[in-house]
């Protein structure tokens, strides 16, 4: 009987120590999430102003502009930039991103995939490991980007993609990532990176009528502006993914702690039941022993 007691006690201990780990991980993720969210808020004014400048220029120009980066080509060679996390234990976060990437390939680029013309660049170790193992064409990986998340590091990746596009190594570049909504929700999306969709803004902005001096010419300005907007777009995606990762991990760890609580409750009940049973047996033995002596 005491054997069963000891076993249950051991299990309670092990569940308790797992719970300590999940609780600690939740706290760490909460702190990191706050920092990641701050980074998003900090970059927002820059990104917005960038778009404004672009629409100012576009609304002051007639005809099509944008140069090679905005021209659609027949999509023969495709690049997917897949952003996952470096570490696991984040619930379904990584598998959702990977699933979406595969679905995109299946639904939109099946013909290119059959010819081996779909390439994957992976930001984040988890995605890299998965795609490399499942014999997708993974040529580049930026798996250490999250260790030191600076604009410069992300810029390197964006510029490499732009260069490869210019060299006609790819005709379409898409980013697969998770957009941060709030700590518990992520939206997994595929967003077009190249060619740049240059839409003319609707004429409602009050700034649009302003007669700007453009220096150098509008065409040169746009040629300068587009790569910068692309850098910003990828940086935003990476920041979003980073915040999503911590949000997902926080939720997952919160669930895990809750489950551990439930498990502990059940274990305590069976522990007490076993203890009570042991006491009852012992009492019965003593009583019947005494009765035998008296009899």
């Amino acid at each position, binding site marked *: 009987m005491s054997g069963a007691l000891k076993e249950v006690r051991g299990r309670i201990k092990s569940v308790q120590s797992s719970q300590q780990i999940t609780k600690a991980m939740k706290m760490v993720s909460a702190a990191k999430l706050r920092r990641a969210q701050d*980074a998003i808020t*900090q*970059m927002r*004014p*820059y*990104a917005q*102003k*960038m778009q*404004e*400048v672009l629409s*100012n*220029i576009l609304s002051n120009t007639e005809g099509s502009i944008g140069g090679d980066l905005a021209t659609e080509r027949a999509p023969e060679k495709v690049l997917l930039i897949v952003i996952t996390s470096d570490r696991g234990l984040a619930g379904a976060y990584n598998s959702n991103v990977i699933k979406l990437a595969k679905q995109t390939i299946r639904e939109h680029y099946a013909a290119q995939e059959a010819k081996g013309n779909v390439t994957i660049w992976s930001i984040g170790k988890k995605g890299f490991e998965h795609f490399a193992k499942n014999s997708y064409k993974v040529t580049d990986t930026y798996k250490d980007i999250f260790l030191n998340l*600076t*604009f*410069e590091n992300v*810029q390197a990746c964006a510029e490499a993609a732009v260069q490869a596009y210019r060299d006609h190594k790819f005709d379409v570049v898409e980013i697969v990532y998770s957009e941060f909504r709030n700590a518990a929700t992520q939206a997994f999306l595929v967003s077009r990176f190249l060619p740049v969709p240059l839409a003319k803004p609707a004429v409602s902005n009050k*700034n649009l009528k*302003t*007669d*700007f*001096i*453009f*220096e*150098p010419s509008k065409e*040169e*300005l746009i040629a*300068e*502006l587009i790569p*910068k907007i692309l*850098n*910003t777009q990828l*940086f935003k995606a990476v920041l979003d993914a980073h915040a999503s990762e911590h949000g997902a991990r926080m939720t997952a760890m919160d669930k895990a702690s809750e489950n551990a609580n439930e498990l502990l409750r059940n274990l305590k009940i069976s522990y007490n039941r076993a203890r009570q049973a042991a006491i009852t047996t012992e009492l019965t033995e003593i009583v019947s022993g005494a009765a035998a002596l008296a009899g």
Partner: protein
Amino acid sequence: MTLEILTPERKLYGGQVYGVQLPGIDGLFEVLDRHAPMVSALKKGNLKVLVDKGQGNTINYSIESGFVEILHNKVTVLVEGANLVDKSH
């Protein structure tokens, strides 16, 4: 006029200033109060904030390439990276 210096990582500077010197792609230029609306590309170089009319009170930044937009007496500098060089009063 108001000056804002924005980078993707944070807002570097915001406030009322007398003027600002910028490294334009075609050469250095200065923006003072009530400048006409303008969009210009900037190259890597030195950006000098003239905090008030006195010559001594300046802040220097070394910037990566970027843009400046001037509209309604508001100057917005968009650069991909910038470092404070020195501050003198």
